[in-house]
Structures are given as C-alpha cells and as structure tokens.
C-alpha cells in the first residue's frame, strides 16, 4: 500500500513537470523563438497566449515585442559651415526578427551598443554635410522679429543671416538619418521606427559668441526705442511751437480785424452824423476844445471887438 502511494505521488509529480515543460505563456509584450538543442525550430512565436512545445527538448527564448528606446549620448559635431554643436539623438526601435536578432546580437545590451555605433556614425556623417541652419530650421516659414516702428508693429526680420533659405530642414535631415540607418539594421533583425534629434546646442565657446550677438541685437533695439522717444519728443515739441504760434497769431489777426472793423464803423457813424453840418461840427468841437485846453496856466488875450467883448464898447447891435 505504501509503495503504491509513493508511485502515485511520483506519477503526479512527473505529470506536472511534463505539463509545465510543455506549456508556456507569452504576454502581449513578448515574442519568442523555440530552439531544439540550440537549433531554431519553426517560425518565431509572435502571438500572445498559451503555447505548447516538446518538453525538455525544446527551449523557449523570450524577447520584447514592444517598441524599445535608444538614447544616444550627446556628440560634439561640426556642421558643414564649421560650427560646433552638441547633438543628442534618440531612437525608437523594435525586434522584428527575433531569430536573426538572437543569432546576430543575442541580447538587448549588445543591440544597444550596435545601435550606438550605427546611429552615431550616420548622424555624424549627415550633420557634417549639412549647414547649421538646415539642422535648426524646418521650413522657410517667414519669421518676424521685434523691430518695433512708431506704431509698435512687428515687422519681418531684416538681417541677411536670418532670411537665409533652407533646402531641406530638420525633419528631412532626420528622415535621411533614419533612411540610412534603416538600410543597416535589418541584418540584426531590428527595425528602427524613428530617429529624432532631441537637443542641438552650441558648444560653450560658440554659445558665448551667440550671447554677445544677442546682447548687441537687444542693445540695438533698445537704442532704437530711445531714439524713437527722442524723435517723438522733438516732433511733439515742434508741434507745440507751431500750435502756439498759430494760436497766438490767429488771435492777434482776429483781434486786429475786429478792432479795425470797429474803427471803420465808428468812423462811418461819425462821418454820417457830422456830414449833415460840418461847420456846426467844427464849431462844437472848437468850443469843446476851449473847455479842455484852457486852464489856470493859460493867459488869454481878447480883442475888444471879439464876440465876447463887443458889448464892452457899445451895446448897439451892429
């Protein structure tokens, strides 16, 4: 009885072992190759789920099916126009042929190092063949810069350096890198999905010069603002002077006109009245002038035959 029990237990144990060795599961993120004594059997398994194999003889090697990352170290590369820049690229890739991958590079770490060599090399080749502007810009989109006029408007950039046109641009350069790399990686069972430039930066020496240029540019704009202010002030001052002269002279002109008109009217009124009897007017006026001109300092000589004294000699009417 005891012996039978042990045998049963052993049988169950072996069964579980065989079952365990016959089945394997693949996650959605995984793919696998089956090898029999090191020799690949069938096509790679890409379908997730429960799978069977010959126990103990066949071996399953699992690879990632997902898109994997590759991040390059920043490289100092001169551009075609001899400007030194730091270029930092990254890529996304995946294992499309696990068998080839297994045979040629075996594991991911090795693959990364192959990618380092390939992508860095291609990037360097293409960057050194391209002028900086082609790498920085992506299109010939017209840029604006603040060269503020009197109205504060933004005008298109004027500097020759800034309107340099490009023939390809960054995304085409990245496409070229990708195309060239894509030719080289299939032998490793790899597909590179995209290669993109993450950073481009000037090296420190160049950066300082760029900063100097930017400062000079800003100073130029600042100077422009200041001189605009001065100009505007001169304009306003001139306008003030002009307005002032206009206002005062116009007032003077009008005042003189009004006065002249008044004088003319007065003259006419006088003339109209006095013309009725000019003799009487001069008589009256003369009498008036006696009153005003003769005073206590005056000495008057009167002849006895004057109108005033004529009765002094005789009362007889003449």
């Amino acid at each position: 009885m005891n012996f039978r029990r042990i045998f049963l237990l052993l049988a169950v144990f072996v069964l579980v072992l065989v079952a365990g060795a016959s089945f394997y599961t693949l996650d959605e993120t995984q793919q696998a190759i089956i090898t029999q004594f090191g020799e690949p059997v069938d096509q790679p398994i890409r379908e997730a789920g429960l799978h069977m194999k010959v126990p103990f003889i066949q071996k399953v090697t699992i690879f990632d099916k997902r898109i994997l990352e590759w991040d390059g170290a920043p490289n100092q590369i001169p551009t075609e126009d001899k400007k030194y820049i730091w270029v930092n690229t990254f890529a996304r890739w995946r294992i499309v042929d696990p068998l080839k991958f297994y045979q040629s590079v075996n594991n991911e770490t090795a693959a990364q190092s192959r990618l380092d060599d390939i992508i860095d090399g291609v990037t360097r080749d293409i960057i050194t063949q391209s002028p900086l502007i082609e790498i920085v810009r992506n299109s010939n989109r017209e840029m604006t810069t603040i060269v503020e006029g009197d109205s504060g408007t933004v005008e298109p950039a004027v500097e020759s350096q800034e309107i340099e046109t490009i023939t390809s641009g960054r995304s085409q350069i990245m496409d070229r890198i990708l195309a060239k790399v894509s030719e080289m990686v299939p032998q490793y069972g790899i597909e590179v999905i995209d290669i993109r430039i993450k950073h481009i930066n000037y090296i420190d020496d160049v950066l300082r010069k760029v900063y100097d240029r930017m400062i000079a540019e800003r100073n130029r704009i600042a100077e422009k603002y200041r001189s605009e202010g001065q100009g505007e002030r001169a304009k306003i001052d001139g306008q003030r002077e002009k307005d002032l002269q206009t206002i005062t002279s116009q007032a003077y002109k009008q005042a003189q006109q009004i006065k002249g008109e008044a004088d003319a009217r007065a003259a006419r009124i006088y003339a109209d009245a006095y013309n009725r009897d000019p003799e009487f007017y001069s008589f009256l006026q003369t009498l008036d002038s006696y009153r005003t001109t003769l005073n206590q300092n005056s000495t008057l000589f009167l002849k006895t035959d004057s109108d005033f004294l004529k009765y002094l000699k005789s009362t007889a009417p003449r």
Partner: protein
Amino acid sequence: MARMVNMSGKVVELPRFEGRWLRLIAIGAVVAWFLLSSFYTVDADEVGVIQRFGKYVETMQPGLHMKIPFGIETVKKVKVQRVLKEEFGYRTQAPGVRTTYEEADYSSESLMLTGDLSCALVEWIVQYRIKDPKAYLFHVRDITGTIRDLTQSAMRQVVGDHSVDEVIITNRQEISLEVRDLLQELLDHTETGVDIVTVNLQDVNPPGPVQPAFNAVNEAKQERERIINEALEAYNKVIPQAQGEAEQLRRQAEGYSVNRVNRARGDADKFLAIWQEYSRARDVTRRRMYLETMLDVMPRVKEVYIIDDKQSNLIPLLQMRGLEKGGQP
C-alpha cells in the same frame, strides 16, 4: 493516535494533528484564492484590461467583474480618465497652495536654438491622457520616456522655426498648438495610445547672460513712453493756456469794438440831437453856446488881457502889470 518518536532514548509525544483540520485549512485557502482571483472592481476613472495566458481578451468598463481565477486571466487597470503631466525645464517639488519648485538647473532641457540662431530658455508642460489602454500597455516599453523624448524633439523642431522674439514674446500660443499637433502625430506614429490634452509654454526667457539686455529693451521702451509723455505734458501745459489767452485777446477786441461803436453812435446821436435843435434857431443857439463856453472857461484861466484894436503894442501893458504885483520894475 499520537505519534511517538524515539529521540535519544526518550520517547516524545508529538502534538496531535488532525487530518480533518488540515483539509479544512487547505480547502479554505483554495476557496479564498478562488474568490480573490475571480472578482475585481474597476474604479470610475480607469478601465481593466483582461489577459488570458498573457493574451489580450477585452477591456472592461468600471464596475464589479468576474474573471477566470488562479492567474489564468489577469487584469491590468489603466487610469484612462486621469490627465497626466510631464514638466520640461523645471520640476515641481511639492504641489500645493504654495507650490515649490526644485532649485536644480534644467537648462539642458530648456535651452534651445531658435530659427534666427539665437537661444531661448523654454519651460513647458505636456498634459496627456491614455486614449487606447491596449496600445499604452503593450506597444511601447518606456512610455513616459518616449513621451518626454518626443516632446522635447517636437518642441525644438517648432522653436527652431521661430525667431527668438516670436518664442519669447509674440507667438507663444501658436507654438504651443503647433507642438501639440506635431507631438500627437509623432505619438500616433509610435503607437503609444496616448492623447495629448495640451501643451503649455510656461516661463520662456532669454538665456541668463542675455537677460539684462532684454530687460534693457523693456526699460528703453518705458523710457520712450516716458519721454513722449513728458513732451505731451509740456504741450498740454502750454497749448490750452495759449488757447485761453487767444480767446481773451479776441474778446478784448470784441469789447473794444462794442465800445468804439457805441461811443461813436452815442457821439453821433448827441451831435445830431444838438444839431436838430440848432438848425431850428441857428443864430441864437450858436451865440448861446459860445457864450456859455466862454463863461465856463473864463474863470479858470490865469490871466485875461483885453486889447483894443488901436493899441498895437503889448509890452508897456505887461510891464505895468509887473510893477503892480511885485512893486519893483
């Protein structure tokens, strides 16, 4: 039926272990495992992705659900409603009422070349949501890293097509939208299953050494406004006063005019009135007026000499007068 074991001559009685209890515990454990691995809940802000032997089966909506137990079916929960955020150029240390930021320098992330070959420090955030949980879980290994790399690449590509002024001052909104669209395109190309909610430029500054020059531009702008205002002030100080003074001059002239005309009219009327009476009795009036004037004038003058027609020499008379007054010749 206690088991006896002979240990170095001593007989020890092991505690009785009932097979019934053992079975019960085993069954209980299995039942517990069954229940725990059969039922699961999906929260309101997530979905559950079910895999059977690793293979994707279906995506479950929020609620209480059942699955095949014992690890045959597994569930991965993905927060599809939650908006996730990545920061570039800075890091939030502790969000809160007063959010604190890390002091570390992230200028390697934020320093970028603009289209006019200048530099700018751009800080921004990306908010995204998981659109396709299946793709999110199964297509890309390092999804956060992918989003970060692609975002940086997209931002730099777009900034590379704008001038430094556009990046810092005028076209921020446009850049955000352009990056958003480009990034979405790249993420779709990489099959990340991620939907960009928004790309937001935060602080965008000129690089440190250039900053004073940028500030100087602002100062110059202020200065321009100040100078213009001063000039306008001077203008306003003078012109309204001059206008008032001009008006004064005009009114004075008008006053003069009224005065002049009124006086003329008065004089004329007066003359005419007198003249009318005069013309009725010319001789008498004339005499009367003459005599009245003389009467008025005579008392006022210092001396009056009366000279007869026959007397032609005045001097003796004057001398006589002098003797009379002073007593001496």
